């Protein structure tokens, strides 16, 4: 055991780890928001509720059908993604020509509905979700104990984030997507089915949120309000990073998670508010955001 700036290394590294975990969720969620905003011009307020829905679906699968963590990691995002696509087809598609604010208001209403229903049926108390056996336990790294599950969350989200970045920035599909973001009319003229692409984009963004939710389930309890406080922080993350860049969203997400973790060590009273304070500073210094393209 040694000390850094008068803080035991154990405490420092474990908060750093928690910071990275939170950062993984910030990154996954802000990535989803950025992808959705790029195609739909809508800020998806339902994102937090869909994250919660991912955790709930995993919980219900285990409870009622005995389907465990690993299948749930695939099944829950697909199910939640499908509900997302239904929402896009039945409601969101009518709003694209209107002011942005209507998309925000509609998705806010949907978030209230989903959270309200979850609270009616499952109460406000958290429901525990069993950690998969394979990932129980931890490694002793000498300077700290590393729980396997937490390491897995960081690695898995990093992989998913980078995979998403690769698909969007480096493949044919991603090129079509980026082109449709810039000029949908022209892309349609090339014979690409843009409306279908929009639907799948929304489904994918929502699935990312649900994926984060499933991974969060064993760490935090599964509770109806787990998404609403998170989504507001993610909004601040998005304001800081700007939604113009995929890599920007990933870097900002992880970076802010780490900063938040460190704040918990050195100045615990400010750990809830540090991201908002950083947002205010960024707005003063670089109004367009760290990775923003236009002012």
């Amino acid at each position, binding site marked *: 055991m040694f000390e850094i700036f008068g803080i035991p290394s154990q405490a420092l590294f474990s908060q750093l780890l928690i910071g990275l975990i939170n950062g993984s969720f910030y990154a996954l969620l802000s990535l989803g928001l950025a992808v959705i905003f790029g195609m739909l011009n809508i800020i998806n307020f339902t994102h937090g509720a869909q994250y919660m829905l991912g955790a709930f679906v995993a919980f219900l699968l285990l409870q009622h059908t005995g389907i465990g963590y690993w299948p749930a990691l695939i099944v829950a995002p697909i199910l939640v993604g499908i509900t997302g696509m239904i929402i896009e087809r039945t409601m969101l598609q009518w709003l694209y020509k209107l002011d942005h604010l209507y998309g*925000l208001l509609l998705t806010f209403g949907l978030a209230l509905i989903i959270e309200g229903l979850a609270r009616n049926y499952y109460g406000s108390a958290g429901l525990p979700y069993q950690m998969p056996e394979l990932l129980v336990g931890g490694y002793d790294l000498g300077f700290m104990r590393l729980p396997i599950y937490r390491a897995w969350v960081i690695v898995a989200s990093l992989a998913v984030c980078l995979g998403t970045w690769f698909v969007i920035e480096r493949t044919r599909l991603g090129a079509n997507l980026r082109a449709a973001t810039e000029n949908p009319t022209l892309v349609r003229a090339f014979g690409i089915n843009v409306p279908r692409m929009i639907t799948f984009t929304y489904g994918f963004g929502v699935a990312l949120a649900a994926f984060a939710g499933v991974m969060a389930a064993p760490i935090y309890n599964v509770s109806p309000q787990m998404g609403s406080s998170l989504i507001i922080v993610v909004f601040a993350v998005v304001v800081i990073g700007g939604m113009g860049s995929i890599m920007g969203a990933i870097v900002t997400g992880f970076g802010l998670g780490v900063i938040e973790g460190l704040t918990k060590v050195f100045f615990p009273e400010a750990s809830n508010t540090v991201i908002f304070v950083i947002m*205010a500073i960024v707005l003063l210094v670089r109004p367009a955001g760290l990775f923003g393209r236009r002012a």
Partner: protein
Amino acid sequence: MEQSVQAATVTPPVSSTRSWSEGLAFAIMVLALAIAPIYIYPMFLMQALCFALFACAFNLLIGYGGLLSFGHALYFGWASYLAAHSAKVWGFPPELAILTGTLTAAGLGLVAGSLAIRRQGIYFAMITLALAQMMFFFALQMKFTGGEDGIQAVPRGRLFGMIDLAHQFNMYVTVLAIFLAGFLLIYRIIHSPFGEVLKAIRENEPRAISLGYKTDRYKLLAFVLSATLAGVAGSTKAIVLQIASLTDVDWPMSGEVVLMALVGGLGTVFGPVAGAFIIIAMQTYLAQVGQWVTVIQGVIFVLCVLLFRRGIIGELAAYLRIKL
């Protein structure tokens, strides 16, 4: 993806001429509010009036400036805290307590507004929401707010040292006077040269800039005015209900005021008042179904956005071809 920001507007352009229909509607509203306490529980009316003023203040920003603030609970809630604290702990009379709360909201509005107007459109909404959440955490941690308990048993006191507000009738008249003063002030702002420039900015900001208007100043002033009036509403609410609590600064409150303005009609003069009464009535009479209120609010949001974007008063005005 940016082209739609400027082209789309919240409401059809509003002509600035005063119309007979607004005058008539105002007379009906005043008359209804004057006789209402005979038939309706005054506590409900006073609460609804406070929220009506809150919704009107919010509407000033979105309906006429095109700026969607998703964090108006910040001004309402913090004004409520300061009014309650100054009345209870410092022993301020109600008029000074309300003034304290209002000035608090104005100061907070100036700081938050000058940050938020640095970004446009959807970012503006996210920034206001994030700043409000930050101040929610401050309210949660600070001692004077009483944390989860809030500030309870706030004394109503004597207005100007003479009028005892513990009497329900006196309190009602005071709240009605505050509401009407706020309402008329907003009406005046909307129809002033300042209000016209604000509408021009809503319709086409680059054009307003090219005409030589410093649009940031106009937006900031609109923001501060809106925050200040929300502060009047919050302070008055603290004196009327004799409580200031975390509910008033939390994000669902910000959502609620958006819902009130949306249900009534964004950018209409009377819409927010109607919306506030409907939402408060719904909460009061549906209190026994508990959590379902959230679900019902969500459904109303979705229905309003998909089917009745003009809101009740907006649809009525369009149907009758009058201004309301």
